């Protein structure tokens, strides 16, 4: 039985806390290991925010997209960077509204790390992309539409 199966089978925080206390897990490691299945199965912004532990998110002008084009030449690789100017930003997440599941990625930002991350996501079609930020327990978001175009000569 591997570590994840232990967690799943015993369902929770007590076992994890126990494992941490006996030194099986480092505390930083635990957060990374516990993959938030519910969040990655949510179908829209609200459900994703709830699965991430919030109630609702408010729109914020302090969240900006960096390096994200208005039009992507190929949906398989769409560069998306998010910058948060909200003080004490502790998490940044990238959601693609029209993907089968909205959440693409979430990043935990420790003290000392800039609240700016860049990655690349897949988009099945033209869609709104949401950047969700958690700061001091509250959730904020910003939205940008990215168009996905067809290309090439093969179809």
């Amino acid at each position, binding site marked *: 039985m*591997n570590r994840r199966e232990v967690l799943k089978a015993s369902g929770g925080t007590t076992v994890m806390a126990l494992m941490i206390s006996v030194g099986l897990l480092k505390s930083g490691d635990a957060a990374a290991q516990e*993959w938030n299945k519910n969040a990655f199965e949510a179908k829209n912004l609200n459900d994703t925010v709830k699965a991430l532990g919030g109630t609702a998110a408010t729109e914020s002008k302090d969240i900006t997209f960096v390096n994200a084009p208005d039009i992507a030449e190929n949906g398989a690789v*769409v560069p998306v960077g998010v910058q948060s100017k909200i003080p004490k930003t502790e998490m940044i997440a990238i959601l693609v509204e029209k993907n089968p599941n909205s959440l693409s990625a979430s*990043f935990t*930002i420790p003290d000392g*790390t*800039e609240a700016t991350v860049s990655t690349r996501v897949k988009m099945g079609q033209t869609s709104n992309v949401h950047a969700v930020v958690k700061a001091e327990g509250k959730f904020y978001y910003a939205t940008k539409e990215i168009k996905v175009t067809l290309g090439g000569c093969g179809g």
Partner: protein
Amino acid sequence: MADPMRIRAQMAGSMVDVRVLMAHEMETGQRRDAAGKIVPAWYIQSVTATCNGKTVLSAQWGPAVSKNPFLSFRFSGAKAGDKVIVTWTDNKGDKRTDEAVIS
């Protein structure tokens, strides 16, 4: 075993600028192979970057992160010569750890 990551860590003023490329298929579980069979989902679920024993970024990913993922971020509190260590774990339990010296 998975191919190594390509990690670049450079001082940019007082911050460390980190860029990571990972070799991973990031299968969505929706693609069909040449024989028409569904290719099972296979993707990186968690990424952790540490420097001098401290976590400087951790991430959770779903299958919508692009194939051969790219990630960039900046952190403070380190100097040239220190090591940035990045580890990923995928949904099959495969793991890969690589490191780079800050230049």
